């Protein structure tokens, strides 16, 4: 009984995010009819590939009761490493470059995960340290901007609508495929369920025979790998990589998307679909800001307000849910 109630409420949570997406979209369309076009929808979808990839990793970490603020730096570092390779050899195989970015991101995530679990230090502190450490390391290793001329044409094409499957750019397809993979992993595999169990109650999970430390490290590695992939998509979309600003603050945007999508900051609850909708909502808002002529400086403030609002709404829902369950029981 309890379980089905809970299930229903959290389905409702995702639905409400989707409704918000449409609501904001149509309100903006009423204000600015130009927004109601195929072009603007493509723009919305082009905004989110690398955000979605980072948000997927962040979501898994939040579900397992971790917070990671180093993902933006991992994105920049992986992108930079690949950029250096391209600078040396522009004909470097693209597949191999993707592989290197993903593996390098996973390695950086592994460092995070090992420090967090081995020394039992809160993940926020560790990743606050590594966020700055990774970003600084780029500059210690050189830190020159990766220019547009260094990036292979094929990579840039991946984010353009004209070279694509029925008008959908490859970068969008890659990110959606990753979202589906993450969803299947989280709901259909043993390790995925262990992530939820760990986030729900680490002590109980341990008593159940789940290797909590391994789960935590796995989550950090996956988030790192996804951010490494996001680094490639970032280069493809933006066309250059400035190590000082690439991905800076992206982790907070990703946290916003995850929280809007209904993932609970206290762990154990959250769905991939919700995170996708959360990213969509931010994409709509981001494009709405530019098309309605609101100053771009508002973007960060609006994101912040959304985070706070989403967290409070989630809290209210959870409390009324508890009250409701109390009524059912008593």
């Amino acid at each position, binding site marked *: 009984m309890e379980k089905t109630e809970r299930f229903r409420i959290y389905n409702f949570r995702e639905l409400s995010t989707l409704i918000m997406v449409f609501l904001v979209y149509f309100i903006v369309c009423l204000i600015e009819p130009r927004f109601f076009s195929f072009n603007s929808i493509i723009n919305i979808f082009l905004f989110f590939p690398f955000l979605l990839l980072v948000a997927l990793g962040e979501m898994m970490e939040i579900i397992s009761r971790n*917070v990671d603020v180093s993902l933006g730096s991992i994105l920049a570092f992986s992108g930079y490493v690949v950029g250096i390779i391209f600078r040396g050899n522009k004909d470097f195989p693209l597949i191999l470059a993707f592989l290197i970015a993903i593996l390098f991101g996973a390695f950086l995530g592994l460092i995070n995960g090992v*420090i967090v679990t081995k*020394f*039992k*230090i*809160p993940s*926020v*502190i*560790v990743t*606050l*340290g*590594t*966020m*700055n*450490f*990774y*970003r*600084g*390391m*780029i*500059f*210690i290793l050189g*830190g020159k901007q990766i220019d547009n001329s260094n990036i292979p044409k094929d990579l840039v094409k991946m984010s353009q609508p004209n070279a694509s499957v029925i008008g959908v750019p490859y970068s969008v397809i890659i990110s959606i495929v990753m979202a589906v993979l993450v969803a299947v992993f989280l709901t259909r595999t043993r390790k995925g369920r262990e992530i939820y169990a760990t986030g729900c109650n680490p002590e109980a999970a341990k008593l159940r025979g789940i290797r909590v430390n391994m789960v935590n490290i796995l989550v950090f590695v996956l988030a790192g790998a996804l951010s490494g992939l996001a680094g490639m998509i970032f280069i493809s979309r933006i066309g250059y990589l400035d190590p*000082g600003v690439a991905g800076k603050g992206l982790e*907070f945007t990703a*946290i*916003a998307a995850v*929280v809007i999508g209904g993932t609970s*900051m*206290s762990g154990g609850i959250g769905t991939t679909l919700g995170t996708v909708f959360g990213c969509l909502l931010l994409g709509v808002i981001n494009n709405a800001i530019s098309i309605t002529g609101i*100053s771009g*400086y*508002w*973007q*960060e*403030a*609006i*994101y*912040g*307000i959304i*985070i*706070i609002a989403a*967290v*409070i709404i989630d*809290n209210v829902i959870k409390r009324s849910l508890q009250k409701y369950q109390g009524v059912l029981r008593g």
Partner: protein
Amino acid sequence: MKQMQLTNRFKRIIKPELIIFIFLILSIIAGVLLSPNFLDASFLLSSTTLQAELGLIAVAFTLLMTAGEIDLSVASNMTLVACIIAVLYQKGINMVLLIILGLIIGTILGFINGILVTATKLPSLIITIGTMSVYKGLAQVLVGDAAISGFPEWFIGIDDKMVFKIVPIPLVILIVVGIITELVLKNTFFGRKVTAIGLNKEAARYSAVDVDKIKIFLFSLQGLFCAVAGIMSISRLEVAKYSIGTGGELDVITMVLLGGTAFSGGKGRTLGTLLAFFVLVFIRTGMRLAIFSNYSQIAVIGALLIITMIISQKIEEFSKDLI
């Protein structure tokens, strides 16, 4: 038997507080190795002004973390106060009035954090990630990419004003405030309450400590300190930009944790925070003298933060089974 006594004595000496002294010595050695000009007292003292604002924030942060809370919005709060003052000054409002107004606004911003955290009972981490974006975003909305300057003569250059011709005023403010905070934390009823909340919130509540009220007070105090820091920073920089506080959280949190304050609360060391402030100043000054970029500096400080946490965790485990 005797050997056991010896190890016990050894364990009693090795305390988490010890690492800050080790780091202090190491940072001085590193500074000297990096540049022969490092050991110039007046130069070192004047470099403290670059970090004094963040040090001041770290002092209030120590209290907050002792009560088991964290505030990631500190640097944004400081920036927003600085930007509001700058914009209103351009509109022609008196600077003295603006300083008072700035202090009030900073306190209100901290108060908002406190209310949100206590009313929703959510982790302060996530709430302050939100307010961090809001405050920073509002600062951007206010000033955009502009750098506002032209403050009155008496207001600018706080870092050039010296006490005894050698100690800059920001450092004096920091040390005085730090020592007062230490005394309050260690010797007053209020300080005991703060520590009790950090140790065990429920137990504190049953001991008739008004947990929420104290937390809101601490967040407001943090806001006030951020406002002071914001005012000091525009006085030193002589311009206000939306980016003046960027990345300040890292330095602040590193100072607090390096000083020996427990992340989970219940143990606060303001004097440790002050010493950690000097460690950071020495490291940054040494690296600056050796012409390392700001990014290399934050790489080192980021690594320092993690190493500090690892060492204090190990020492904690080591001294736990003390008989």
